């Protein structure tokens, strides 16, 4: 007898993943049965507004994307830390509030630093 609250709760997640994947797979397969397949060299070339594609698309991207991701990583982890605090907020009382003020202050200082260092500027 399998009886486990966690398993019961996440059973729909697991089954929905499987059914979702199966749904997409069946849809693609059905369309494969029906659709025409008439490939030509021009049809298989990359779309570039009816021009012959120039070079490779996998270019070096703007450094700003990288900066945004770095700042995001820091903030995302810190936001995740706020959740357990928010859940336990009413049990923690004033001490919890003060500790979190310190934490959020550090977050704000971090944001201000990134801002000042122009990590958030899109156009340099």
């Amino acid at each position: 007898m399998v009886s486990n609250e966690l398993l019961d709760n996440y059973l729909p997640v697991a089954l929905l993943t499987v059914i979702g994947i199966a749904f997409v797979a069946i849809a693609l397969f059905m369309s494969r049965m029906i659709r025409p397949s008439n490939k030509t060299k021009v049809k298989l070339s990359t779309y570039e507004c009816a021009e012959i594609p120039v070079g490779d698309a996998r270019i070096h991207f703007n450094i700003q994307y990288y900066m945004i991701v770095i700042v995001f990583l820091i903030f995302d982890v810190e936001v995740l830390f706020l959740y357990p605090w928010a859940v336990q907020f009413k049990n923690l009382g004033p001490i919890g509030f003060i500790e979190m003020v310190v934490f959020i202050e550090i977050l704000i200082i971090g944001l201000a630093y990134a801002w000042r260092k122009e990590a958030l500027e899109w156009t340099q």
Partner: protein
Amino acid sequence: MIANAYELIVNILTAIGIYEPVYGFFQSFGLEYLLRIIIVVVEIVVLLVFVLLSVMFLSWLERKMFGWVQSRYGPMVTGPHGLFQPIADGIKLVGKEDIIPASADRWIFTLAPFIIFVPALLVFVPLPFGDTLILSDLRMGLIYIIAISALSPVSILLAGWASNNKYSLMGAMRAVAQDISYTIPLALAAIAVVLYVGSLSTVDIVRAQEGTWFGIIPRWFIFMQPLAFILFLIASIAEMGRIPFDFQESEQELVAGFFTEYSGMKFAMYFLGEYAHLFAVSGVVVTIFLGGWTGPVLSPIPVQITSLVYFIIKTYAVILFAMWLRDTVPRVRIDQLLNLGWKIMIPLALLNLLVTSFLLTARVI
């Protein structure tokens, strides 16, 4: 106390006297758990049908509304007021040739539609459609929802990279920058609500919004947390990648963004995923800020039905708002978008969090 749709189904089956003999039958093979799996699969199939019908209706509604705003009729030919247009579109897409460009990465190109569609469905698991009408009341439902929604940039980046098309890759990168920038205000705005509720379960969040002030104003979090609501709504629309934040597609400059190279059924999966996501995100906004399924109880009608109706009405109100925005607002520039996210919304969300926690600590509210 019935917690989710599974227990509701079991209760109904027990009431008509079917459950015990069937359970006994499965027990004789030692496969009790299989019965649970079968019931959950039935729920999921119902959900899937509901989502697909909603997507079809939404795509019709979106085009129709776009038409009305521009003083045209929109689709009119297939069925009454073009209502069967989505079916015609679906049949057309099934029969379309599926083109994978010769220079594309075939495996990742095929994988990406799976990764966009499955998470769009997974968001529905902890979404309460009504009292007890929930697939599973996860204890960390809110974090689950935010985490699953954060999977969509992965799929977009895979699609953009695999296509080996300049427009696709540019659209994908913009989409990722935008999605991750707006995940933070989204999560921060939701924390302010968690402070009141003390739980991440979506059902607890809705239950905390039951009742009224002075018998008139419902105790929805939109009235206690108006700023958080506005931030959450803007961040949700940005996460969905809809106008005014639709850089991933921006058809005037990037053709169709990350799905430029997609055609046929794979394109249809993006389409399905996009509208399923629209419905799910609107449902989340309703659950957190607009009282979810709560509403006046009409006693002779079962609470499941009335609550489902309330939820659908509220969700469509949010969806219509998103569509209205798309029809009337121009697209912002990418630097304006990131400035809005990082320099206005995140500081405001942090400030809102500080003020809310201070007021709660001081027991003013």
